[in-house]
């Protein structure tokens, strides 16, 4: 069992992970897994298992707050959740037979692409939010069939933002791969879900963040249960990790809607670059044995 001071240190770290995770609609595993393996010397598989449980913790504490604030689009979440959980389930099973080394490179390239799209779309999104322009598109048949649309009240500019969802099929397919990656690589996949909704499906960033926050809990619980009943969960770290991320997510969700979209997008860009670099590093190390700095 850990001593009290390292438990409190760990609680502090997971608080930060929970806070950033709430702002971005992601799980925070990108912070928790390296912290556990590098600082605390936990084996990678145990670190992933702990991380995935904390993702459930941050999602249900952060997600419920966004549902109350009416930013979450539950219909859209359920729609995308059908493909993403299938992906996560297949991915978790595939872990037993294939290795994820080439996937790291593919996901790294995707992360860089999405990072650039985020930074390029800052002005356009700010303008569209201010002029409430997310309604003037034509929906595809699937989005129309499921009545995928929504609205939320943006507290940073004090008005309601309405939107119609488009490209549901593309979104559904990309969600499948986000789920597959999450099962295979032990990442939450929230960063991909937010980007898919925001960049391809015409969902404003804040609504995408809240919807992703809700979704990742369901996806993570699907893989967490595998680790839990298989007895892979290291109980030493669970209590401080869960409390830290819950508190962090609570604070994060309280401030997210007050932040201007521009700053959220810039934060997104930075985090996506970090994730892309991290994955590229892992991929290159595993495929051709090249070690990038800081990996």
């Amino acid at each position, binding site marked *: 069992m850990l001593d009290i001071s390292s*438990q409190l240190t760990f609680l502090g770290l997971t608080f930060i992970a929970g806070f950033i995770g709430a702002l971005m609609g992601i799980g925070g595993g990108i912070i928790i897994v390296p912290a556990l393996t590098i600082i605390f010397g936990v084996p990678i598989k145990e670190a992933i298992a702990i991380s995935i*449980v904390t993702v459930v913790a941050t999602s249900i504490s952060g997600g419920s707050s966004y549902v109350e604030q009416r930013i979450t689009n539950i219909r859209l979440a359920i729609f995308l959740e059908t493909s993403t959980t299938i992906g996560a*389930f297949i991915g978790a099973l595939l872990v037993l037979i294939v290795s994820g080394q080439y996937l790291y490179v593919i996901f790294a390239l995707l992360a860089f692409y999405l990072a650039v799209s985020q930074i390029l779309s800052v002005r356009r999104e700010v303008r569209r939010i201010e002029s409430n322009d997310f309604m003037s598109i034509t929906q595809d048949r699937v989005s129309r069939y499921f009545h995928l649309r929504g609205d939320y009240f943006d507290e940073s500019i004090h008005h309601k933002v309405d939107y119609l969802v488009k490209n549901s099929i593309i979104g559904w397919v990309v969600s499948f791969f986000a789920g597959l990656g999450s099962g295979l690589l032990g990442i939450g996949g929230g960063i991909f879900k937010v980007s898919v909704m925001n960049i391809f499906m015409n969902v404003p960033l804040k609504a995408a963040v809240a919807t992703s926050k809700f979704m990742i*809990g369901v996806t993570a*619980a699907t893989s967490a249960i595998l680790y839990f009943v298989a007895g892979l*969960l290291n109980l030493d770290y669970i209590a401080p990790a*869960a409390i830290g991320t819950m508190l962090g997510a609570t604070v994060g969700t309280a401030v997210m809607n007050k932040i201007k979209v521009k700053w959220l997008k810039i934060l997104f860009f930075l985090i996506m670059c970090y994730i892309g670099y991290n994955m590229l590093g892992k991929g290159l190390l595993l495929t051709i044995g090249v070690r990038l700095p800081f990996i």
Partner: protein
Amino acid sequence: MLITGVIVSGVIFALALVMHIVMPTKLEVVYTLALLGAAVLIFTPYLRVLVALGAFFYNREYKFAILSLLVLIIMVLSLMAGLIFHIA
């Protein structure tokens, strides 16, 4: 709904930490509490999807009731795969 799961598991985890500080020798109590907290946490999303399923069905939104049911089935499949993996 979700918030109840957060509060219940949060309280259990906090109790585990307090027990660890107050009675550092009784590790089995701390571990049992941590295990219980994790169980509550993981099952909360299961319950959340179940409630969504019920709500969509009640509101006669059958398209979404079916989608929720699909998600729930995959979640249960994963639980069963975990059990099989554990036994094997």
